[in-house]
């Protein structure tokens, strides 16, 4: 077998050789086109009769690999429920080839023997860092190793950071993958550096200064973040470890996610105030990012919406405390003043200010320079502008289009946006009034002020810079009320837009492309466009790597790179932090690999996590060569609903020696015997489904078909085994407490039994206890329960659209199947369905209600 790898650079060939020669986990720095190597590995093994599985690839990966594999003349087949039926899948697997399969589907296909596990040549796993012991990828790998001991497993990742988080993350990951060998290729690897630094591209950096108002607003937001964190720490001192945090680290870390992770083990026991504070952090962080990327009007719009929804309408819901801070007031005022302000001549008139983003001007300067530069040669230069997201792309495109026919480009653009904003404000006021009618009385807002305790009004903190002080404002921040004067000004100041002439636009002088960063897809983009000039409008470390690779691959092409960033802002710090973090992670990984032999041998004894231990014990049994495939008849059987394969329980059940039969169930989640039917609820699910009434309907149908209906309340392994703390309960019996609803449920369904389980692991043991006393369940009967004639159980329901359907008013657990099994295909079609058809499907009352709800105009509310 002769195979010539299509890899242009020497280090890429080196990685390819290493992966081919030995099964292992390959950690590559982002941007070094690891997918190209994956494609070559797949092509290398793809010979007639071979069956290769690509696991854990996302849509983008698949699209890129299809392209690369096409060059290598090997087709890639992608399998998800939408594209291929069960029969089609079976046939395709038999024919062999390269398949990218969603892991949840692969689990099902392996369990139902649709795919011949023993004939699989090998598995290639992408994003290996994301694999956890209890996830479905690990389940696939276990099923694979059980039925096939000779096939290869090769894993890739380009996120070294994730392998250094937590204790023994690397060795844990390797155990799930059944791998021992690790190869590491950071950017600072000698061969990588050699290849890339041979012919460096010309780079021009622009340190753009943010406007004064942007800087002040950033300070305001950071002050709000600090106070929120301080408050969070005050009321949760026992669970939060944030002592080592500095203001700097706040800027670039995903601190909201870190805090959420720390609080997660007791999330269902936290007070609603704490939850409000945590979600505030996410909001504030997104404001921090939008501040430098959104134009001033879009930012104000975002801020208006945030303030409105954070204000709290339900008396049970807390108002976000940061809104009551002085900096929040300053923030909204500054945000407004960037858009319009009181006219200096007459105080009752407001005039547009419309501050432009500083980067716009720089961008124009760069483009003019390129134009001049290019005029020396006679070819049209190919220029590529890269931004963080599509939104910024639109913004720049808009800006460049308007700049062609007017000197004052940004003003033209912003005036158009201002007009849209004023239209929007009218709808916004509508919602606001609606909310205020039912909202909380004012005093209540004031008295719920959380920060009063934290910072007494008379004890002002001494800080540099006036806007920095964390004093309480006298009134809560109010959303924009006084906008009428603005309407009058719009007619006088803002002219109607001219039809855009395309005569002298930048798009004509240049071959100009504006794109957003899109991971590995950027490699293909660079190859296709082969740009002479690249403007990195936003920073992205991986993209710099890609440019380096592109440059090294084509050293003969002319290339100049411009790079703009706002100095001294979150943007710059985030960029520097990302670069440093990647380097640190690689150094740690290399150290950890050196100690690996010790880790792998001692890890088994030192494992404290029972879930891990549990799955591990299964693994050793398989490694011992136990013949597991011959026990199909004696194995205890559990019928499991397809949707449940997103949870860890089916994988654990299988690991414990149950025969797991995947079926699409209408009634129940797990069927243990002809009498025992279990509906599984995690604690958040339990709360949600008791509120929505869904659990009531589910219990109803379980009771109709099974003698012993069971509600399984499953706590998370890592979370506390306790419902809300009692201190949260009031002195009187509450109607809406979780416990009260549980009481009501058991009163309604006296036959309903409850399983309390501290983890999925505990559930498995309880299931085997219960099953010991009963007969085996029959899949066909279980599937038929709850279905009306004509509704066939063989088609698979898709989760996202069905959940949305159930979220609509007038659609209930009882009638949603009438829609799902009708010829209405999806939610968009449901919107266009005639009144007559809807009433036929779900009855006159619900049908009319739904029809009217869809068509109700916000302005008529």
């Amino acid at each position: 077998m002769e195979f010539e790898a299509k890899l242009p650079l020497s280090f890429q060939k080196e990685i390819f050789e290493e992966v081919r020669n030995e099964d292992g986990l390959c950690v590559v720095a982002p941007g070094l086109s690891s997918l190209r190597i994956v494609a070559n590995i797949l092509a290398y093994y793809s010979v007639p009769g071979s069956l290769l599985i690509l696991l854990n690839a996302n849509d983008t990966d698949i699209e890129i690999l299809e392209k690369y594999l096409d060059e290598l003349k090997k087709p890639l087949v992608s399998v998800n429920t939408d594209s291929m039926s069960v029969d089609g899948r079976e046939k395709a697997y038999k024919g062999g080839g390269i398949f990218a399969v969603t892991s949840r589907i692969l689990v099902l296909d392996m369990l139902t023997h649709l795919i011949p596990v023993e004939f699989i040549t090998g598995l290639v796993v992408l994003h290996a860092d994301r694999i956890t012991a209890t996830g479905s990828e690990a389940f696939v790998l276990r099923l694979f190793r059980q039925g096939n001991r000779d096939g290869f497993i090769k894993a890739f990742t380009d996120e070294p950071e994730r392998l250094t988080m937590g204790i023994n993350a690397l060795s844990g990951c390797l155990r799930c993958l059944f791998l021992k060998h690790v190869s590491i290729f950071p950017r600072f690897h000698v061969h990588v550096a050699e290849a890339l630094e041979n012919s460096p591209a010309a780079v021009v950096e622009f340190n753009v200064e943010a406007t004064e108002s942007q800087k002040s607003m950033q300070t305001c937001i950071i002050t709000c973040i600090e106070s929120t964190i301080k408050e969070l720490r005050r009321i949760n001192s026992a669970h939060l470890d944030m002592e080592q945090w500095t203001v700097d680290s706040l800027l670039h870390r995903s601190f909201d996610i870190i805090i959420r992770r720390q609080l997660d083990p007791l999330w269902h026991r936290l007070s609603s105030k704490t939850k409000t504070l945590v979600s505030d952090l996410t909001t504030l962080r997104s404001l921090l990012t939008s501040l430098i990327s959104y134009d001033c009007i879009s930012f104000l719009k975002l801020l208006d919406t945030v303030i409105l929804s954070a204000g709290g309408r339900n008396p049970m819901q807390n108002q976000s405390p940061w809104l009551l801070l002085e900096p929040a007031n300053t923030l909204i005022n500054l945000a407004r003043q960037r858009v319009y302000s009181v006219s200096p001549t007459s105080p009752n008139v407001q005039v547009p200010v419309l501050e432009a983003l500083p980067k716009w001007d720089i961008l124009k300067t760069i483009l003019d320079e390129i134009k001049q530069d290019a005029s020396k040669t006679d070819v049209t230069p190919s220029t590529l502008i890269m931004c963080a997201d599509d939104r910024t792309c639109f913004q720049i495109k808009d800006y460049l289009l308007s700049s062609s026919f007017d000197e004052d480009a940004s003003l033209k653009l912003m005036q158009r946006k201002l007009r849209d904003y004023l239209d929007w404000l009218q709808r916004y006021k509508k919602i606001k009034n609606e909310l205020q009618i039912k909202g909380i009385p004012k005093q209540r807002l004031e008295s719920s002020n959380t920060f009063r305790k934290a910072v007494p009004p008379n004890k002002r903190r001494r800080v540099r810079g006036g806007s920095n002080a964390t004093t309480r404002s006298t009134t809560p921040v109010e959303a924009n009320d006084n906008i009428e004067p603005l309407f009058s000004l719009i007619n006088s100041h803002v002219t109607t837009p001219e039809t855009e002439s395309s005569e002298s636009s930048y798009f004509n002088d240049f071959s100009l492309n504006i794109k957003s960063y899109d991971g590995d897809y950027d490699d293909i983009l660079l190859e296709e466009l082969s740009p002479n000039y690249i403007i990195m409008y936003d920073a992205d470390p991986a993209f710099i790597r890609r440019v380096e690779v592109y440059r090294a691959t084509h050293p003969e092409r002319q290339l100049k790179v411009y790079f703009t960033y706002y100095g001294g802002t979150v943007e710059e710090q985030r960029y520097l932090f990302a670069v440093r973090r990647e380097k640190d992670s690689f150094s740690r990984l290399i150290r950890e690999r050196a100690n690996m032999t010790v880790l792998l041998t001692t890890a088994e004894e030192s494992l404290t996590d029972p879930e891990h231990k549990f799955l591990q014990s299964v693994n050793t049994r398989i490694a011992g060569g136990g013949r597991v495939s011959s026990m199909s008849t004696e194995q205890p059987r559990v019928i499991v609903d397809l949707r449940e394969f997103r949870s860890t329980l089916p994988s654990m059940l299988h690991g414990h020696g149950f025969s797991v039969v995947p079926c699409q169930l209408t009634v129940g989640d797990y069927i243990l015997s002809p009498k025992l039917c279990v509906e599984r609820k995690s604690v958040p699910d339990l709360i949600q489904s008791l509120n929505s009434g869904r659990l009531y309907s589910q219990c109803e149908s379980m009771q109709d078909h099974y003698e012993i209906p069971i509600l399984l309340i499953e706590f998370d392994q890592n979370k506390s085994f306790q419902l809300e703390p009692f201190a949260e309960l009031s002195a009187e019996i509450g109607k809406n407490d979780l416990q009260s609803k549980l009481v009501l449920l058991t009163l309604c369904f006296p036959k309903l039994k409850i399983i309390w389980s501290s983890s999925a692991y505990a559930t498995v043991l309880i299931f085997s206890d219960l099953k010991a006393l009963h007969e085996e369940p029959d899949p066909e009967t279980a599937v038929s329960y709850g279905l009306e004639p004509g509704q066939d159980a063989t088609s698979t329901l898709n989760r996202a659209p069905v959940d949305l359907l159930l979220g609509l008013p007038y659609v209930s657990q009882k009638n949603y199947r009438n829609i799902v099994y009708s010829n209405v295909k999806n939610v968009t079609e449901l919107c266009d369905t005639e009144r007559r058809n809807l009433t036929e499907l779900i009855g006159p009352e619900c049908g009319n209600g739904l029809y009217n709800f869809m068509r109700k105009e916000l302005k008529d509310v």
Partner: protein
Amino acid sequence: PKLVSKSVNHNVLVSFRQKGNPLLPHLRNVPWEYSEIVPDFVMGAKTCALFLSLKYHHVHPEYIYSRIGKLGKAYELRILLAVVDVENHRESIQELVKTSVVNRYTLILAWSSAEAARYIETYKAFEFAAPTNIMERPSTDYLERVQNTFTSIRGINKSDCLSLIAHFGSMKRALTATQEELEQIDGFGPTKVRRFLEATHQPFRSQK
């Protein structure tokens, strides 16, 4: 004697055996009295409870079985109210789950005497309550309905709901929105747009 039986309906009956149970001082919201009954608590004509502290259970594992044996299948709803007052509870809870399913008891776990008392109170208070509070009932408020609909899409929060309805003006226009339209909305990144489109455009079911 007739008067007595009438007052029984309003009170929680407590067995003399429960004297000294630390949950009794917490029984404040409903009246209670001692009575000669087989179970430990009677919260209604059809509802009774056996009380068990896991600490006690660890010392006297046979106790609860003798109580279950005596009570048998009397009362329609039999609660086994267990207080989790020990650290290593997994095995005993596993055992109690099995016992309760086999003997048709409904197991309720509480983590303190106060919480256990609240369960007893609530069973009494809700003796004749209608289940409307836990049944599916459409909300009547337009914006609440809008929120309920949109938040059933993963990753869409309440402020996104307001942005959506303010931008599109009606549910029909929002739910039939295209990718380009959604990308215009402030706060909507590529992930949110993708999830929204998946929920609105993917078919409810894929054919075999």
